[in-house]
Each structure stands twice: as C-alpha cells, then as structure tokens.
C-alpha cells in the first residue's frame, strides 16, 4: 500500500486530498475531499492526470492581434507542451466566434481547441 497527497484543483476550496493505493496501483480510498468531485479528481489524477489548456492564437485582420483559446475538455497533462506548440503555430482569420473549433483532435488527444471569445474583424 502507498499514499499520495495532492490539492484538488476542481474548485476554489482547494481541499487537500490523500489517496491510498494498493500495490497494484488500484485506488483503495480517497480522504480529505469535501464533495464527490474531489474523489473523481483524485482517481483521474492517479491514473490519467488532465488539465484544461488555455492560451491564445494569432489572428489576421482582427480587432485584437490574438484570440484566446481553450481545450474544450481537460487534456492529458503530459501532452500540454505539445499542445502549446501546436497552438502557437496556428494563425486564424477574423472574425472568430466563441466556441468555434480551431484544432480538431489536437496532438491525437481527442480534445478540441476552441475559441473562447468573439473577435470581430477590423
């Protein structure tokens, strides 16, 4: 058996979680969470840690030179820098609509990169 500790980042409370693991790596129990989201966060943090990625892409002919984007769903933590590079290479044309998919299945993660604001053309 072993223990792992981390902070739940699912909401601003930031509960301190303790996960007890069997030798096989299976989760035995989760302590310290205030709500069920903490338990599922702990389980995914042990098996497949994920984070929402947020950055900007360059925009041609927009009211601003860049437009904010996000991963629609959390992306594998280990792939974040690869995703950052893919996003940095992208340039899109204004106008951009909020929710518009800018990269499908980024880095083969099944996660889409979408615009997170409307940006009008000049």
């Amino acid at each position, binding site marked *: 058996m072993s223990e792992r500790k*981390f*902070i*739940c*980042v699912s*909401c*601003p*409370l*930031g509960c*301190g979680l303790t996960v007890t693991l069997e030798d096989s790596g299976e989760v035995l129990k989760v302590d310290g969470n205030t709500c069920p989201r903490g338990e599922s966060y702990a389980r995914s943090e042990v098996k497949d840690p994920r*984070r*929402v*990625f*947020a*950055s*900007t892409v*360059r925009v041609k002919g927009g*009211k*601003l*030179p*860049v437009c*904010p984007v*996000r991963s629609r769903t959390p992306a594998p*933590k280990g792939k*974040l*820098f690869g995703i*950052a590079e893919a996003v*940095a290479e992208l340039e899109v044309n204004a106008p951009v609509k*909020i929710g518009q998919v800018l990269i499908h299945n980024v880095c083969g993660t099944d996660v889409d990169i979408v615009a*997170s*604001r*409307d940006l009008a053309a000049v």
Partner: protein
Amino acid sequence: MSRDIDVLIIGAGPAGVAAGIGARREGAERVVVLERDWDLGGILQQCIHPGFGLRTFKEELTGPEYMHRFIQQAHDEGVEFRTNTMVFQIDKGTNTVWTMNKERGIEHMTPGAIVLTMGCRERPLGAIRIPGTRPAGIYTAGTAQRFVNMEGHMPGKRAVILGSGDIGLIMARRMIWEGAEIEGVYEVMSWPGGLRRNIAQCLDDYGIPFHLKTTVTKIHGRDRLEGVTVAQVDDHMTPIKGTERFVECDTLLLAIGLIPENELSRMAGVEIHPVTGGPVVNDLLQTSDPKIFAAGNVVIVYDLVDNVSDEGLIAGANAAKYAAGKIPADIRRIPVKGGENVRLFSPQYVTGQADTTIYMRVTHPVEQACRVFAEPDLYSQRLRYARPGEMNEVRIKAGQITPDIKEITIDIQPV
C-alpha cells in the same frame, strides 16, 4: 422634472454588467453602462484561464466565456452600453456625471441613481520601495497578462515573480506554456497570497520553486533588467544578513496586491473605508451618498467573480429601487464591527431590508478547526481553517435583524 437615465453604471466589468441586469429586472426604464475600453468585460477579458463561474453555471469557464454569457443576458434585458466612454468627474452634491468620448465629445448627465463598478488596479513597484535601478522589464502581473493574452507580446524569457497573488501564479504557468522560464516566486509573508489550488496547478505542476518569507531586496540592470537580489526576511520583515542571493532574470513580475479604484468615488464625496480602500456601504450596497451605490472590486477585492456578479445584481436592483423612490431616507443602519482576527470586511452596515452576506478576510491564518460567527447569535459556521488568501462569508437573514440589535460583531476564532 423629466429624467433621461434612471440608473447609470460606471464600468462594464462583471460587477457593472450584473448591475445593469439587476437594475432592469427591478423595473428601471433606462439603464446605461459606461465603459472606457472599446469592449465590454473588464479585467475578465484578459483572464483567459478557466476558473470562473463554477457556482453560477456549474462549469468552469474562462474569463471571456463567463463574460460572454452575462453580456448576452444584459443585452436580452435591454441594458444599454456606451464603450470608449471615460467618466472623468462626478460632481459632489448634484451627482452630475461627466464623460468623454471621441465622437460625442464631453457630455454630462444626472441620473436617478449611480452604481460605481470601476474595479481595482494593481499595487505598483512604487508601493514597496526596493533599492536599485529602474530598468525595463519590470511589470505588474496584470500588465504582463494583458500583453500576453490580448496584445500577443511576451514580456521576457526568464522571470522572477514577487508576491504570490493569484494573478502572479496564473502568469507563471502562462509564461511557462509560452516557452519562458520562471526562476521562482517570492513571497514576503509566511503564507501564500493566492488560492492553494493555484499554487498546485500553476507552480507545483511545473516544478516552479515557491519561497515564503523571502523578498526582492535589490534590482540590477541599466537599460534592461539583469537580475535581482533576493533575501529571506525575519518576523519583522527585515532582510536577514547572509541570505542574499543574486538571481539572473530579464523580467520581474509584481503580484503584490490589488487596490480598489476610487478617484471618482472620492470626487463624488463618498466616504472611503480606510482599510478596504473602497466606499463604506450598507447591505443594499448604498454608499454614504444615498444616490450612489457600489459593487465588485471597487468596494473590496473579492476572490471569486461569482461573488462580484452577485453583488452587482444587488447594487443594480437597489439603485433601481432608489431611482423609483422606493428606498426610504431614514433607513436603519446597524454597524458591523470586525473582531480580533478580522482584517477587512464589507458591507459595514446592515439595514435588515433583505438577506445579506458579509464578506471578510482574516488577518492571520488559523490552521485548525475554527468558527466564523456573527454576534449577537446571528450566524455560526464551522471551518476547517481560515486563511487571508481565501475570503469567508457570514450570512444573515433579514428577519434576524430585530429592533434590539444595536451592533453586529463578526470574527473567526479557533474552536
């Protein structure tokens, strides 16, 4: 006398947009929000990371996504917006509001009620005298955030962050994702300024060192920043000799706190609280001038935008009531007092007209089970801990405010 505007709102950040919605829903005919920027949304335009609106929308949105939803609601409710419009004066007494706009020139208006929602700004370098030179490369974290997220410029390649406010933590991760290096985050206090989850997901995730009780004691470089000296501090915040260390960097980001933006409030003659730095308000979010209301970070710096929007809705609704003559002038005002471990709180008066939430921060962390309460016997809630970086709330129902209550005391004490 015919009146043009019923409720005039200054600033179209989350507080101002919500105030517009609140005022229209309360029946105000003409509700106008003035904004100096070309676009609506306030600071949230540049907060492109997720973390907003979990309580309101049951999902974590980025700042622009959160504002998008509120702005749409405001349009649907018939709130009018005027962008590129700077308010530069509010006359004391008459409450005439003066604005400047490139096309419309200088105008003035005297509305039925005013809501102040100008937000806050960051404490600059001048607020914390550091010896040394003043080269390029020193920014407040929020300025850097605007550069990166709205203007597409990186402030530098290797940065040191002074202060552990949330904006600094968020910018540490942001710059890492853009390929920069963050040498470390230095905090003079013995506890972090920002939320624990931001320490976890912005620093720990990327192995960025976080130094408590440590500060920058000198700035080096002639034209461009070349480095800083950091040193540990003792309990009196004096640098400890022998702990100094030179750190090479081309960028220094300051995340050393926010101050409510109240030049206009002062001009208008509104009483400003010496500790919060924002207007003194009652639970209707009415200032010392009955016609002027205030909400959001202009009043007290909140942690969560959900609270800012809530307060905006309340201030807008009450401003609409005032404009319609529905708030009596001789309203009861029961003063709220902060106990031993309370650094600041808002509102400072309770009227008992509606249910209310008092927001507060402790002076010192309490790292054990404790109780947040309001005397006489109005509220009590157990907490696992209380920390200056995380606001606490006291909730009081209108019906609890009986005629015998003369004063309310709020505090947090270990149990």
